[in-house]
């Protein structure tokens, strides 16, 4: 197969992969956002239920769906736990590093999973306020590192396919008989 790398997952990653918290779609979500794409092999969809409490927008419930590796599922799962009960302003401050730390560490090649999880979260928070038509002053105009990386990963596919543009596709059949016992 491709050039491989050892993936020493932590027990926490394995545990959350096995028994993810808050998995599945949410019927009454206020906002649903997706980061990543099937072609990247890495996709997180985040559902948030938000309520207004003493002047703050608070995440009442969070659920996720994930198409991705074990680290992707674990990162999405821990993200839903980390944001529940937090105001959107507090949730905005969660970084990809916080997710990785909360998982007891991720192999460096899997950092992009926690980046994608935070990318989905930030996208959801922006989308929530865009729908309301009011942007809080703490919400930066410029994209954060996680948002930029998420876009980068989503665009990665175009680059990958461009590398294969010289590939010639041959129609099926026409080969000789196989050498066989």
């Amino acid at each position, binding site marked *: 197969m491709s050039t491989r*790398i050892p993936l020493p997952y932590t027990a926490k990653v394995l*545990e959350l992969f096995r028994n*993810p918290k808050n998995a599945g*779609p949410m019927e009454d979500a206020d906002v649903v956002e997706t980061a990543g794409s099937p*072609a990247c*092999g890495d996709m997180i*969809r985040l559902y948030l239920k938000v309520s207004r409490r003493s002047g703050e927008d608070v995440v009442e419930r969070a659920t996720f769906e994930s198409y991705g*590796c074990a680290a992707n599922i674990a990162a999405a799962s821990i993200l839903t736990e980390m944001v529940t009960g937090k105001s959107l302003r507090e949730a905005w401050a969660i970084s990809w590093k916080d997710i990785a730390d909360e998982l007891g560490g991720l192999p460096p090649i899997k950092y992009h999973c926690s980046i994608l999880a935070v990318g989905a979260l930030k996208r959801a928070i922006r989308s929530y306020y865009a729908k309301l038509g009011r942007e809080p002053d703490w919400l930066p105009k410029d994209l954060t590192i996680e948002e930029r990386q998420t876009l980068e990963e989503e665009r990665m596919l175009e680059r990958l396919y461009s590398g294969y543009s010289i*590939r010639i596709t041959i129609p099926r059949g026409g*080969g000789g008989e196989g050498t066989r016992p």
Partner: protein
Amino acid sequence: MGPGVSVRELLELHGRPPREVYFDLENSGYVPPEVVNEMLPYFNSVGYGHPSITHKPGWEAYEAIYRTKELLRQVLGAGGIEEFAFTHSGTEANNLAVLGLALARRGTRGKIVVSAIEHLSVIHPAEAAESLLGFKVVRVPVDSEGFVLPEVLQEFVDRSTVLVSIQFVNHEIGTVQNIEELSKVVKEVNPEVVFHTDAADAFGRLRIDLGRLRNVDMLTLSSHKIHGPRGVGVLYVREGIRLEPILRGQLSAERLWPGVENVPLIVGFRKAVELAFSDFEGNVSRMRSLRDRLVDGILSRVPDVLVNGPRDPARRAPDNANLSFLYVEGEALTVELSMRGVYVSSGSACTSRILEPSHVLLAIGRKHEEAHGSILFKTSRYHTEEDIDYAVETVTGAAERLRKLSPLRRDR
């Protein structure tokens, strides 16, 4: 906390599943007790000497190496035992074939022709021959089942071609190439071309007769692919083909590979060859029927599964099953299956260093998302029907669980 500590915790949490079935014979394999027992005396009671030194333990080592070569000569129909060189892995044997020839022909700046789906241990040395020695590498495309078509191959070979390397059986999708025909059409264009075939996945599964395959000049074998120990590779080099060693150091019994020979492992490999060939047809028909039971079982229970590689069983290796489970990612599936005691590998990008899926699956035209969900199974005579049925049930449950988590089904 180093990665070692975290993996120990991971393993504690993982625990030992009640039943374990190992299908990842592509990457490393189960070594049966008969093979282990054959090796043990060679560590400390016989043949533990250096095969080129004139003492009894040395002569015993020498004898063990040559007895193994004699067996290879017989089962492959080769001309002489001097045509076999041991390396310490199949990867090393492929490196020796490609770079050893490139070194012997350096200065010619000729062409090296490989198929697009060769093992990386052929593709990467070919690329090194290009960047370091000025050769030109040409990749021959394959059809949607992985076949190299003779008329297409012929288009890529010319007077400047020095080496053509086409796998006998593809390691991921089990495509059985018609090596007799492919090697013949290459020599029709240019009789000076050296034809190499990586037969690591063909050995023990298909009859290989070097007497009949007279246009094949070099052939690679790997011990662990036939339940031998890891750490033994073989390169067959037809008499008259000149290679240069690519590693430099003290040569001994092996003229092409310096360093002390892995004699105990070579003895284990010999036992594995004996076992594979003692009931060759029986072994092959067993792996084939287990493979068919596995694939039929999965396809009948799990929807939305693609078969990667040849549909025609006669043109597919008898042990190979490569399936893409749509809407789930292969690495997650390997972890999930591991927890349930079924051990497989995936061509997903998520298991790779460069986050790019298997070059083999992309070359047969699979989309990225199809390659990401691919799982490779290899069956062997050591599996039982109960193992297969357990695997079918386990795979069904694992795919169901991960598909429930996936947003993709709803998006269709």
